[in-house]
């Protein structure tokens, strides 16, 4: 097991299976089909992201460097939170980007969902964590990976 300390953007605790995107996570491309057509597993629809394309995102600890793409990204993430289709948590190796921050904050302020968000976990975190590992997030931004 390894532990990583990051910065808390949205506080909370959770334990979930990791889903790792090594490249930028395109929120719109990843969510648009799943949200529109009621995919219960919320499978990733971004054909440009070979790491997670077609993999279920619901309830996973989404590990990523940052999000990329359309500025609808925050709105899409907010909607995922509002309808209970958000990841269990979002764990960023880099400082969070403005779109992901918007979505995470909108979800936190305007919905009852729980989606802890921690950023600045470092490249070592992203190098270490593998899809399928168990990730535990503490209130203070400590992330355990095993």
């Amino acid at each position: 097991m390894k532990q990583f300390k990051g910065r808390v953007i949205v506080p909370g605790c959770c334990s979930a299976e990791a889903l790792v995107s090594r490249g930028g996570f395109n929120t719109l491309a990843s969510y648009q089909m799943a949200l529109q057509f009621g995919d219960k597993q919320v499978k990733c629809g971004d054909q440009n992201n070979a790491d997670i394309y077609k993999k279920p995102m619901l309830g996973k600890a989404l590990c990523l460097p940052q999000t990329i793409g359309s500025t609808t990204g925050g709105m899409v993430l907010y909607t995922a939170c509002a309808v209970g289709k958000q990841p269990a948590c979002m764990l960023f190796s880099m400082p969070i980007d403005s779109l992901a921050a918007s979505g995470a904050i909108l979800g936190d302020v305007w919905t009852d969902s729980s989606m802890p968000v921690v950023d600045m976990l470092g490249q070592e975190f992203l190098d270490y964590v593998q899809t399928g590992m168990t990730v535990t997030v503490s209130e203070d931004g400590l992330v355990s990976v095993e």
Partner: protein
Amino acid sequence: MRLTPEQQALLDGSRGEVMAKVMKTLVMYGDAFGAEKMVPITSRYGHTVISFGLKAMKPVYDMYDRLIAAGLVSGQEFTADPRPLDKNVPSSLLENIVFKKFMYTEQARYEKQLAELGIIDSKGYTCTCYQDQVGNKPAKGDILSWAESSAVVYANSVLGARCNRNSGMIELMGSIAGFVPEFGLLTDEGRKAGWVVEVRCEKRPEAQLLGSAIGMKVMEEVPYIKGLDKWLGTGLDEEACTYLKDFGAATASNGSVGLYHVENLTPEAVEQGETLIKEGAKVYVVDDAELERVRASYPVIWKNADAKPELCFVGCPHMTLRQLQDWTDNVSRALRANGRGKIAVPTVFTAPPAVIEEFEKGPYAARLKDTGIILSYICPLMYMNNPLCKKKAVITSSNKLRTYTSARYYPEADILNIITGKEVGK
């Protein structure tokens, strides 16, 4: 963050619970990026990326109902991204059922909300709001609360305005409050370049391909681009601005670029030169081989990779008047050369309503119509945003459309050849 007494009062609920939530959202947003204060929005108009009433996004419209019910509307008029539907664009019976019964069931509700919140008028729906005919063109140094990745990168880079890559919803909250947290691209430091891109192409690089390559490389950092003035010149004339519109859209969608500087061309690069480059900036060299490598890396996700194209979109982001005129000339010429009267692939050109109105006043409109090409105000991305389109062999010159949909990208010269029947793309 240091709030003024008035801002603190808003946060504490002086204008009600909903406004307090708007303030909390903006404060948390600023805190995430180390903002120390809010700064007033100085642009005349806002711009929102949300133009669609999608059933799946109902929580967004529910929240907007709460804002409106609380008397919270935008303090400035605004434009919005293009509408998602246009009856002139080819669609099957099944697609029409999907669009109207399953997807855009909230469209009428949302457009009513936009009218209440402060959209300019019914012609204010375009992603290229900064075009002269539309009139939402901020001045250099203006502080904006916009969202729409291609518009934000254009406003920052070509116009020298200041705007972060805000998300949809956040941009409206800024326009309601009248201020935004000061961080990132709103600061001098945040506008410095972490990458130097050296363009060493032997021919003028395709705007949307170069933008894609740079976007994928630098992600959200600011690139300082050398060597592009060789192809674009040193003046921001109509041709250069059009190129940068398409280039920027690709940097923003294939990566997440919010600002780029082009040496000897864009306003801050002209004024400040290489002082804009951060110490230790990384270097990315782009030549013709690199562009070909990037293009070859795009996945083709058509079921049949050799399928004959069924539909073509040109105009994501929306075209300019000059682009419409040039494409009309080029298509007419190519059709004549190929011995055809009409295009070989159903094709839609998209442009802002105000540009279409202007275009239709002149002689080009009839010529374009004669070719069989459809002119629309639609958002191609929204049109393609359904599983039925995934089964269609759609081609495009837009790297943004390629990124978000199953559309296949071709450079403009190839698109021209394909739609005029010279060759069928594979």
